[in-house]
């Protein structure tokens, strides 16, 4: 095991992509956020439930927030921060960063500015909206002072991004099975999602890996509704009653741990 693997094995990041109406606003304007375009409006309900659950289980989580959601729900996002969770960047309006071309750096700076002004400090982490990025993204993030990216799905442990253009940065890789959207978007019943998560967790723990879960506070492809929240609670408790319990950390803390290793 490398030093980073030793330092981050057994840590778990619980991450939330705060995707409300910014998803639907890519397709329609404000007046049309009704009917089939109303799913994103559910988001605050999901965030409320997540905050209660994380408090009950003592989970420090990382919330990736698009700039547009900060503008639409400043009170809610402040509540998340005041509960002690990390707020990290996630674009402005869920742009496709693989297609922005020369406009990408400006877009990153805009979202970075909105979030920095709101928080009173610069965010340390970034996640590509929908996981889409360009070959230049990591270099831009380095220039803006980011400590980590969390957009890839290609490793069992965090790793250094120096060879990928993110000089001095850490990647906090996501686990595809532990992304709620991947399972709920193909309409898996909640019990089957929990089964998948538990099996994946046991496999990861058997090799001492790092664990990253990705959640959405939505009702369609997210974990926002109450029955799903109960399954999430069972899963998070399972990670603690395991013979090899994980330690919850924010992504920023994990990145600092990796950089110091």
């Amino acid at each position, binding site marked *: 095991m490398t030093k980073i693997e030793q330092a981050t094995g057994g840590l778990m990041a619980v991450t939330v992509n705060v995707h409300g109406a910014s998803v639907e606003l890519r397709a329609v304007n404000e007046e049309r956020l009704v009917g089939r375009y109303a799913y994103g409006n559910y988001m605050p309900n999901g965030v409320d439930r997540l905050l209660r659950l994380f408090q009950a289980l003592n989970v420090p989580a990382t919330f990736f927030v698009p700039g547009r959601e900060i503008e639409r729900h400043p009170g809610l996002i402040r509540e998340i921060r005041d509960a002690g969770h990390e707020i990290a960047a996630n674009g402005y309006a869920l742009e496709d960063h693989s297609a922005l071309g020369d406009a990408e750096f400006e877009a990153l700076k805009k979202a970075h500015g909105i979030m920095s002004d709101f928080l009173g400090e610069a965010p340390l982490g970034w996640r590509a909206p929908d996981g*889409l990025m360009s070959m230049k993204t990591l270099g831009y993030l380095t220039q803006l002072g980011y400590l980590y990216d969390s*957009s890839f799905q290609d490793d*069992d442990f965090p790793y250094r991004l120096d060879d990928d253009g993110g000089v001095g940065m850490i990647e906090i890789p996501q686990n595809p099975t532990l992304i709620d959207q991947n*399972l709920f978007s193909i309409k898996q019943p909640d019990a089957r999602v929990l089964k998948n998560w538990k099996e994946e967790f046991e496999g*990861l723990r058997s090799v001492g890996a790092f664990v990253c879960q990705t959640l959405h506070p939505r009702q369609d492809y997210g974990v926002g509704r109450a029955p799903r929240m109960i399954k999430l609670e069972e899963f998070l408790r399972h990670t603690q009653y395991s013979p090899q319990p994980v330690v919850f950390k924010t992504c920023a803390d994990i990145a600092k741990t990796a950089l110091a290793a």
Partner: protein
Amino acid sequence: MTSRWPQDARCVVNITVDFDGLSNETGKKLLPIGKYSHGRYSAKRGVPRFFELFERLGIKATFYVPGYDAECFPAAVRSIADAGHEIGAHGYLHEAYDLGEEEPFYLRKTHKILTDLLGASPVGWRNPGGGKSDLTIKVLRELGYIYDSSEKAADFPYFPVVAGQRLRDFVNLPDNTSSLDDAPFYRDSMTPPSEVCEQWKAEFDTAYAEGGYYDLIVHPRSGFGSGGPTRAKALENVILYIQRHPGVLFQRQVETARWCLQNPDLWPERTHPWSGRQ
């Protein structure tokens, strides 16, 4: 039941691994980063994990490698051959689409890349994502290939018909991408690995009962593959289950192909034990 297999085996098992690194996404004009980074897992984690697993279980496997991945990950691909596994060709950019008249060019290109890298030519080929045409076998034979593992027409090996002639120097080792391939289960239905394991055991039970052929297809990547610890464990449990049965012969596909070519009369057009029809 009379055996058709070497050593009077009751069932032959090929474990086949489609490397599918960056070629898969690059071939679809997607940048292999962010949510399309699953192929980066192959060389970094999946292939070493499979090596360790196969060595522990005493198995030699066949790895299908796209030419582009051999260019991107030469050390990892060389290590496959060094560990005694077979390397077959699998397209250049994992072309699941129709290449038209450019197909021979890309078949030759990948053939040269793999031959130069390994110092030996591949003799087996598997279509990437179903991409194959009426030109394919013609070109593969010119390049010295002796088998193809792409067809869905049978459960047993068989000799393909090309231009009205049934070949005797080139054999099809069928690949079942419906239920013996990890990708559909882990991509389309996200089936829990424990259930995939049970499915593959049940598939083996019928192959074993028929004195048959069992070709299990896995990918070392993240995402739809089996490279991660949970799914690699499911693969291990399947292999351990198979190994508890007497008379099972694990082979690389090249050995299975050579056996079929040396014993062509054992493989009539319709080869199911209960079928007398031709």
